[in-house]
């Protein structure tokens, strides 16, 4: 909300400077977002008198003026305005001044061969209004030579943010009241009006919707002239960013901006029959002042007559009965609408107006009668006319809130000791009544006050938050205790492990284009937003792969040969009851070149599924998962290459991770060149360590005897998984075999069709005495027998 210093001073007697006022506004909770001083913009413009005006020798529409600037010789100025003439006073922009409307810098120039030393300005050029028919004409008594800013009374403009709990500060008078309470001056009392009612109100006014419109006060004024509003009012409205329209419209806007009190004025000639606050009928339509037609429903309160709706109550008036330059008789409306209903209606219709903002937050229920008198008085002063008696339909809320307040709470909650008499002074300055035993009666306009804590806030903000001393939180004995949960500790550890493995951590959007999300959706339906900010951010991710894949694609488009990305974040699934089921997940994405071509390694090597497996196993090991017990199984999902992907499971059901090369159709869908390898590790599937963990590690007990290696080469069916053979070999003699690993896999020459050769190195560990030849023979036989069960035969 904007208002000028001059307007504020109209209500507040103060000597404070702009910066003092701004600081105080901030201190009491009215945030100053900007201060603009029009005097800065009007620098170089001054009151001047036209001494003579002669036609330009070379241009029909230009005149050559001599202008008295109040000092030195008169200046010659070329001017195109038809109203420029000898004897008039106007505003001259001197060379060096900047024209507010377009930022043009004035300088001495020649216009069609005639020297010009400045510019006589129009209202629009100085951004004081729309008029551009001629140059500004100042009254005869305007002092020649005075800076125009001073003469015009250009006043600094505050732009403040009013928090939604303070509709009472959505008018300059309310702000003045707060400032006065905070010691910034004295609040001037409002003028009292005595309106002479000349006749009974000829219009029947009713409220048939006492819920939506508890009170509707009105009166008629006959014989008004809807000309221009007075200059001082226009100046204030302009400063507030409100364009002057006509006296009647300006006066209602003025009421709203000065007192936070929206009102409405109808052209009486356009009304017929009783004017009633009622619910709209479903499907009823109204052409509103913004020239849009709105379709209403029965939840909305409207003001209507026999012909239909004239006002979407508290939000926007209708075009049909709006006042026009020729309007002579008017009906004034001042009402109290239910804030909730205004909010719901406003949201449904998508209309945001200054009136809605105020009604929705709650106007002053105690200021209907006086508001109507003020409005009447302003109209009569500037438009003339005779006023009718007031008609009052319904009653606004009148029951004030009374709060039993303990001034000690200010210290206990607010942390500052404010003497009781100062607390009382503050509350009373804000129109609270402090009764016996601290029974505090709240002004009706303060809808935000609910209980004692709100009174503490009033006292503390006016007293000053600066006066609240910092007090250290009580501290537990000793050093700080660990605070991370096991999952947080796990995420932290994996994040650093992944980065240490050369991966770059990314943070990608939680939402995806629906199409991308669908590629990765599981059994649960996706979470799809009702009101996404764009189609690209619509469905909550069921996997972290798409986000990283898109990032890799962008990297590749930027010319990057490879992306090694990882992210730790949530996948969004659904719980049985329909609530959110969010799973902490680590995703790794490897795209493009694993190693670039090099002088020592030749061609670039691309990532393959084993790189994914390496990341999965290393990170799972870091996470404390029993990697040696994991089973490599299939069913990584349709997003992966069916022959180059796998899951890592602890038991057949518990999938800890999936990894592999992505399916070519996925790469196509994301428009990225392969190969791309992805890993997803499901952090919440990793079993926690059992029992209470101490710090002590098991004893170090290296075997006393040297281990022995034996190699076996088997011919196996081509389709046999090496892992199965390995597991069989390892399990052949658990007492003696401590490890086995594949060191060669071969197909082709020397190996029969349909077979492959798998060579395994087995580590044997003697426990108490060294192996004898017959021991080794027995173990070898067990290995060969176990392998045979998998279809393997020892190669000769």
């Amino acid at each position, binding site marked *: 909300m904007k208002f000028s210093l001059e307007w504020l001073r109209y209500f507040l007697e103060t000597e404070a400077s702009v910066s003092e006022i701004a600081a105080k506004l901030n*201190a*009491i*909770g009215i*945030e100053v977002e900007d201060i603009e001083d029009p005097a800065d913009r009007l620098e170089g413009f001054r009151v001047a008198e036209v001494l003579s005006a002669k036609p330009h020798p070379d241009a029909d529409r230009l005149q050559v003026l001599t202008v008295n600037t109040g000092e030195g010789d008169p200046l010659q100025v070329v001017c195109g305005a038809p109203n420029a003439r000898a004897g008039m006073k106007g505003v001259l922009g001197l060379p060096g001044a900047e024209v507010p409307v377009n930022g043009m810098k004035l300088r001495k120039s020649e216009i069609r061969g005639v020297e010009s030393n400045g510019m006589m300005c129009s209202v629009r050029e100085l951004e004081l209004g729309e008029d551009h028919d001629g140059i500004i004409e100042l009254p005869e008594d305007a002092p020649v030579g005075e800076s125009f800013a001073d003469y015009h009374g250009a006043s600094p403009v505050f732009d403040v943010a009013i*928090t*939604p*709990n303070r509709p009472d500060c959505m008018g300059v008078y309310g702000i003045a009241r707060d400032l006065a309470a905070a010691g910034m001056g004295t609040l001037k009392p409002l003028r009292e009006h005595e309106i002479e009612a000349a006749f009974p109100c000829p219009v029947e006014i009713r409220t048939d919707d006492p819920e939506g419109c508890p009170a509707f006060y009105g009166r008629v004024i006959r014989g008004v002239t809807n000309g221009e509003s007075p200059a001082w009012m226009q100046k204030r409205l302009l400063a507030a960013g409100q364009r002057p329209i006509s006296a009647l419209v300006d006066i209602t806007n003025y009421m709203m901006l000065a007192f936070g009190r929206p009102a409405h004025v109808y052209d009486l000639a356009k009304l017929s029959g009783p004017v009633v606050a009622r619910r709209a009928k479903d499907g009823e339509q109204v052409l509103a002042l913004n020239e849009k037609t709105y379709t209403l429903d029965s939840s909305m309160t409207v003001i209507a007559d026999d012909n239909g709706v004239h006002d979407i109550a508290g939000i926007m008036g209708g075009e049909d009965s709006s006042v026009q330059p020729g309007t002579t008789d008017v009906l004034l409306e001042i009402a109290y609408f239910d804030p909730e209903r205004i*909010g719901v209606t406003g949201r449904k219709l998508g209309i945001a107006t200054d009136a809605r903002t105020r009604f929705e*937050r709650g106007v002053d229920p105690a200021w209907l009668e006086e508001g109507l008198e003020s409005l009447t008085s302003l109209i009569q002063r500037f438009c003339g006319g005779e006023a009718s008696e007031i008609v009052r339909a319904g009653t606004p809320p009148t029951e004030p809130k009374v709060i039993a307040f303990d001034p000690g709470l200010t*210290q206990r*909650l*607010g*942390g*500052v000791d404010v003497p009781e008499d100062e607390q009382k002074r503050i509350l009373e300055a804000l129109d609270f009544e402090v009764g016996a035993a601290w029974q505090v009666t709240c002004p009706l306009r303060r809808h935000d006050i*609910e209980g004692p*804590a709100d009174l503490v*806030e009033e006292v*503390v*903000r006016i007293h000053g*938050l600066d006066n*609240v001393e*910092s*007090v*250290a*939180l009580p501290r537990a004995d000793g050093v700080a205790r660990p*605070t*991370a949960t096991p999952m947080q500790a796990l995420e932290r550890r994996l*994040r650093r*492990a992944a*980065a*240490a*493995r*050369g*991966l770059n*951590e*990314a*943070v990608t*959007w*939680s939402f995806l284009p629906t199409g991308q999300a669908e590629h990765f959706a599981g059994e649960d339906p996706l*979470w*799809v*937003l*009702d*009101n*996404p*900010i764009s189609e690209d*951010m619509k469905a909550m991710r069921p996997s972290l792969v798409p986000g990283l894949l898109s990032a890799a694609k*962008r*990297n590749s488009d930027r010319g*990057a040969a490879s*992306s090694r990305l990882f992210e730790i*974040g*949530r996948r*969004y699934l659904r719980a049985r*009851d329909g*609530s*959110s089921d*969010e799973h902490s997940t680590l995703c790794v994405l490897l795209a493009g070149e694993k190693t670039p071509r*090099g002088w*020592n390694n030749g061609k670039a090597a691309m990532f393959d599924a084993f790189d994914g497996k390496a990341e999965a196993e290393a990170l799972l090991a870091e996470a404390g998962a029993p990697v040696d017990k994991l089973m490599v199984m299939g069913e990584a999902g349709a997003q992966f290459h069916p022959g180059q992907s796998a899951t890592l499971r602890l038991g057949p059901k518990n999938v800890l991770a999936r990894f592999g090369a992505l399916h070519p159709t996925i790469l196509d869908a994301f428009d990225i060149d392969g190969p791309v390898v992805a890993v997803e590790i499901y952090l919440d599937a990793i079993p926690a360590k059992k029992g209470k963990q101490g710090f002590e590690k098991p004893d170090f007990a290296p075997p006393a005897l040297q281990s022995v290696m034996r190699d076996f080469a088997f011919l196996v069916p081509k389709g046999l998984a090496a892992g199965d053979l390995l597991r069989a070999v390892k399990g052949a003699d658990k007492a003696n075999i401590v490890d086995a690993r594949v060191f060669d896999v071969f197909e082709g020459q020397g190996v029969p069709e349909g077979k492959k050769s798998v060579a395994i190195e087995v580590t044997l560990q003697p426990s108490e005495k060294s192996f004898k030849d017959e021991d080794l023979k027995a173990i070898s036989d067990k290995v060969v027998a176990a392998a045979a069960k998998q279809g393997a035969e020892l190669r000769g």
Partner: protein
Amino acid sequence: MSDHDQMAQEATARIAASEDLTALEALRVEYLGKHGSVSALLKTLGKMSPEERQEKAPAIQGLRQTVADALASRKAELEAAELEERLASETLDLTLPAGAGPKGSIHPVSQVMDELAEIFADLGFAVATGPEIEDDWYNFTALNMPESHPARAMHDTFYFPDPAPKGGKMLLRTHTSPVQIRTMMDKGAPVRIIAPGRVYRSDSDATHTPMFHQIEGLVIDRDIHLGHLKWTLETFLKAFFETEDIVLRLRPSYFPFTEPSVEVDVGFAIENGKRILGGSGDEPGHGWMELLGSGMVNRRVIEFAGLDPDEWQGFAFGVGVDRLAMLKYGMDDLRAFFDGDTRWLEHYGFSALSQPTLSAGVGERA
């Protein structure tokens, strides 16, 4: 000169002239081999009478020794030369690049969250979390924003069409404040937590993204007041920015879930077009920047969370993690945080080993 001397002279000369180990070996065989000439002389000693042997043996033994020494010495020379030659052939061009492993990085948001966790752990705050897809009861109602509350509309909320299990709407949490409610409901009081996480608002420009990160702080106890809030914010910001020169400006404000409510600005200076924290915002060339919202928890919120507001009171605050990261480490475009541009990640990211600790300083100096 005796025959022996002459023979020694000739042998040493030939040995010294030998050009390689093969030639040297041939000479060794010629002199000291089974049928070698020196070996033959040695064999004659056995047939001699003791007197004769005593007379001739020293010369013959000397000859053998001389030849053997010459052979050994020449062998060492030739071997050294050969090694030198081999090494010369093994020279590498070490100006060629060594293979470099990839260098990973930690995202600034994670780094800053770790920094905050470290600082708040020292102040006794545990870390709590909650779902990002919430229902409107936790996100709004329990935070004293009933359905018709104008503040709801100001939150630019993302909604889902799905009904919430307990009634109401499902939505993306607009702040981390629902975690306040969940924590109080689950754990009761007293409470001292921070709750970091993703939050969502329907908003987008250089400083606003539809997804961003917040940290919520909540302290509930019997005698916590505004002074404690002020101290906590000052203490945490000074620790986070590792400077005593942090000037805060507290402004009364309005949040439905706190009463009184306090907005906190921090003073900064503009240097080289960037905001540098420090100094009062009222000093010349300085300004105030809105940093966080806070206040004393509204008693209705405490009631909604199932605690007795006559027994328990406390404060809450919420601060943007991305914004803290930008201020501390000098990024100026929030949107880049979520792009996954490897160049950006490597530029603004942190080493895996830069785990924030109090003993080493939580921040990473540039």
